[in-house]
């Protein structure tokens, strides 16, 4: 039994406690089975609509993490010889507060930032961090969303004022997935897609790789990386020329259709074929399927579209397709979901701090204006003294940017330059190793928070299942630090998490007690459709925007113009192959879960996926060691020769998150989508060469 396991106390000695899983962001309902004071098993909650009694192995492994032998249980401080020493919580927090106060005096509050990772969540957990840093006087809130989610959010919000992370798959007639492997990234969604297909819905999958969901596609369009915008425009052209689109919607509720239609004409079948690598018949087939499926057509975009130099515009074009289909805010289409109407913890009204110049807000104004998100890649420059002002301190919670941000060497250098790096974590990650202070964090099983499934208008209160003494939940940490810094009374006055929950819920009339009676979730509001008939879209003009005057005002083109990826427009003979990254593994989530031994049986190590033709060309056999080099850096890794249908010739893939073969040594932090600031991660020009296997000692 590990130390953590010995110390942990479950809320009941024997029985089943229900809560939501946060091993990924799906928040499936879980039954936590407790026997003699320890979690003995985890199964899926039948009643929760998200997963209906099913569970995945990540969810079940939550207990493995909580009881893991390597779990951090005590605060750690880096001492002069570079190792970590255990210190008390009070000492850690006193010293951190003192150092933060020192940085404020020496440089200004904005010299300190916070960084919230995916591991934490996107509800009140995120808001604690945003609240804290603004209360401290700094606008510098960073998160994983500098390279995830926001690209899609902004792309869709620019067009229709909202993004729905889970459209109404179950009732669709056609589902088109763009660069998204939903069964792996969002497992419960696959059940909805499967339900739709069982009722006769069609599925189109657009992706450079033969991903799991593509095995069920009626049309699998194996597209060249980064060219999805050309395909989208090609489909737009087809629909407009055929006259098959929702004329009424376009006429009454949109603006910019004329210039949009004119631009579309340039996307001839020849051009689209050449650009995307897709046979023109395939494009016509997809277009025909869209026509047949209208209006209940869902276009769903994944990270696969975000991580490109022109990601936002490509996404906008797809969003426009939704309008042409008449799928906006309808059943079986893309519903415009509404919030619960609870309180928010953020301070953007009270303490906007715009004059403090949030990092990246000048370069990526849309990112900041839409999401109040500072730009992590720009922050690296600030940390290295090359920004407009110094960024000297950072509190990171539930994130591992040394592995998951692009250009890892630069990230490591930037963090090394900080005066204060605090990392809240469950494990000693690569990022934690660089910290001055590490604080052991509570897992989701040790916290009680509000979670939303906005597509279903559902709110669920998670249950604290166990308590690990000495490990703080998220609220407690920020509160304790805030009090030491003098703004605790004002901004973190609640005693405990539960009090925060109550406060958040108050205006809704839904009580914590009520929510405790509904572990399967509580619907806060009925779902309605076609709200745009009675109220304006949340866009600058209130219309569905084919062209964006808001963007024009900022100096961007008003149309979502397609710009080819650089490997097409500026091919470089030194880097003849295209590297895409980040393909999902079911059992792993970004840099997490490689410390679960059984998972490594299934996903043993990092590998570079290569087409058999390319392997032959470069003299590479399966399991050979190779060196992959980009403009940014190089990486030694083992090759996996794929089946010829699984990947395109000329394209390689490496999944991220492996500390021993970190693909982010190769990726760009300084080639970004101009609107979202997202880094180029999925079309990186590289070259490959076979090498001798490295010495075993190098593998660590």
């Amino acid at each position, binding site marked *: 039994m590990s130390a953590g396991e010995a110390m942990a106390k479950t809320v009941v000695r024997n029985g089943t406690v229900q809560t939501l899983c946060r091993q990924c962001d799906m928040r499936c309902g879980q039954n936590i089975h407790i026997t003699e004071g320890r979690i003995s098993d985890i199964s899926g909650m039948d009643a929760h609509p998200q997963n209906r009694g099913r569970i995945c*192995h990540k969810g079940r492994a939550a207990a493995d993490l909580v009881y893991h032998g390597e779990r951090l249980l005590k605060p750690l401080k880096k001492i002069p010889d570079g190792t970590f020493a255990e210190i008390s919580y009070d000492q850690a927090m006193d010293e951190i507060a003192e150092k933060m106060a020192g940085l404020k005096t020496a440089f200004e509050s904005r010299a300190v930032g916070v960084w919230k990772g995916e591991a934490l969540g996107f509800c009140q957990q995120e808001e604690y961090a945003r609240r804290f840093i603004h209360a401290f006087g700094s606008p510098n809130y960073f998160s994983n969303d500098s390279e995830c989610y926001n690209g899609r959010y902004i792309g869709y919000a620019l067009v229709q004022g909202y993004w729905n992370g889970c459209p109404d798959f179950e009732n669709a007639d056609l589902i088109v997935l763009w660069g998204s492997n939903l*069964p792996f990234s969002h497992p419960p969604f696959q*059940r909805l897609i499967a339900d739709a297909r069982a009722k*006769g819905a069609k599925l189109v999958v657009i992706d450079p790789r033969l991903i*799991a969901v593509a*095995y069920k*596609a009626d049309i699998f369009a194996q597209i060249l990386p980064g060219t999805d915008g050309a395909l989208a425009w090609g489909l737009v052209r087809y629909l407009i020329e055929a006259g098959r689109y929702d004329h009424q919607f376009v006429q009454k509720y949109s603006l910019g259709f004329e210039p949009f239609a004119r631009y579309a004409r340039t996307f001839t079948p020849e051009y689209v074929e050449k650009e995307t690598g897709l046979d023109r018949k395939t494009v016509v087939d997809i277009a025909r399927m869209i026509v047949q499926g209208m209006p209940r057509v869902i276009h769903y975009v994944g990270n696969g579209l975000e991580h490109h130099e022109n990601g936002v515009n490509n996404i906008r074009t797809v969003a426009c397709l939704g309008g042409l289909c008449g799928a906006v805010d309808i059943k079986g289409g893309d519903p415009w979901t509404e919030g619960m109407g609870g309180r928010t913890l953020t301070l953007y009204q009270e303490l906007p701090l715009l004059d403090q110049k949030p990092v990246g807000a000048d370069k990526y104004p849309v990112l900041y204006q839409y999401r109040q998100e500072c730009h992590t890649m720009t922050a690296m420059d600030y940390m290295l003294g090359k920004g407009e002002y110094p960024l000297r301190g950072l509190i990171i919670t539930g994130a591992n940017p040394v592995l998951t941000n692009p250009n890892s060497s630069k990230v490591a250098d930037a963090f090394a330059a900080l005066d204060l790096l605090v990392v809240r974590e469950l494990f000693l990650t690569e990022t934690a190793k660089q910290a001055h202070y590490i604080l052991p964090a509570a897992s989701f099983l040790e916290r009680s928070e509000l979670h939303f499934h906005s597509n279903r208008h559902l709110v669920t209160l998670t249950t604290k299942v166990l308590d690990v003494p000495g490990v703080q939940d998220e609220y407690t940490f920020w509160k304790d630090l805030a009090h030491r810094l003098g703004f605790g009374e004002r901004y973190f006055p609640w005693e405990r998490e539960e009090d925060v929950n109550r406060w958040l819920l108050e205006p809704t009339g839904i009580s914590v007690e009520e929510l405790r009676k509904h572990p399967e979730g509580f619907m806060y509001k009925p779902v309605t459709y076609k709200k745009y008939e009675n109220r304006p879209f949340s866009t600058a003009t209130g219309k569905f925007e084919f062209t964006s005057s808001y963007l024009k005002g900022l100096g961007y083109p008003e149309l979502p113009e397609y710009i080819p990826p650089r490997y097409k427009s500026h091919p470089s003979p030194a880097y003849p192959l295209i590297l895409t990254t980040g393909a999902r593994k*079911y059992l792993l989530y970004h840099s997490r879960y490689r410390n679960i031994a059984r998972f490594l049986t*299934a996903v043993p190590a990092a590998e570079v996926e290569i087409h058999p033709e390319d392997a032959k060309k470069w003299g590479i056999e399966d399991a050979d060691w190779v060196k992959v080099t980009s403009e940014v850096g190089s990486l030694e890794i083992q090759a996996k020769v794929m089946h010829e249908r*699984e990947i395109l010739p000329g394209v390689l893939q490496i999944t991220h998150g492996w500390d021993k073969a970190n693909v982010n040594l190769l990726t760009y932090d300084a080639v970004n989508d101009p609107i979202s600031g997202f880094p180029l991660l999925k079309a990186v020009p590289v070259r490959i060469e076979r090498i001798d296997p490295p010495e075993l000692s190098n593998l660590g």
Partner: protein
Amino acid sequence: MKIISIELDRCIGCRNCEQACSLYGRGGFHREDSSIRVNIYPGERFISTLTCTQCDAAACLDICPAGALRRSAETNAVVVDENRCVGCKMCLMACPFGNIHFLADKHVIRKCDLCDGDPKCVKFCMPGALHYVEVEDVPQLRRLIVDSKLMRCLVIEP
């Protein structure tokens, strides 16, 4: 009596079922230990998943020269008694679906035993391809799918 019904059209080959079978039955994630098998054919873009159908006229049960296989009264599954099984492999040769597997470390066979009535593979199937349903309901499940598809063809949009 309930059996595991597989709706192949929902399976996307995540192999969570194999992992669950291995984990709960033998510990760890060892594909070769799993009694449910997911076969993926990239060339054909096709996935075939299969587990023991607990045949009424079970070839394995018929042939076992050690009397190690019997029909469970509770679940109707054909189950193996590892103390009686010597690993002669005649049942591997008898099953027309190749659903009997061999455990090299114990030198006995392993096969689906429906987890004594609570099949784990079903619980870990997120897309809902696996169901644990009454035998009589299986044709109905298929019927519903066919009916929905038929309905869709008949609906004419105004």
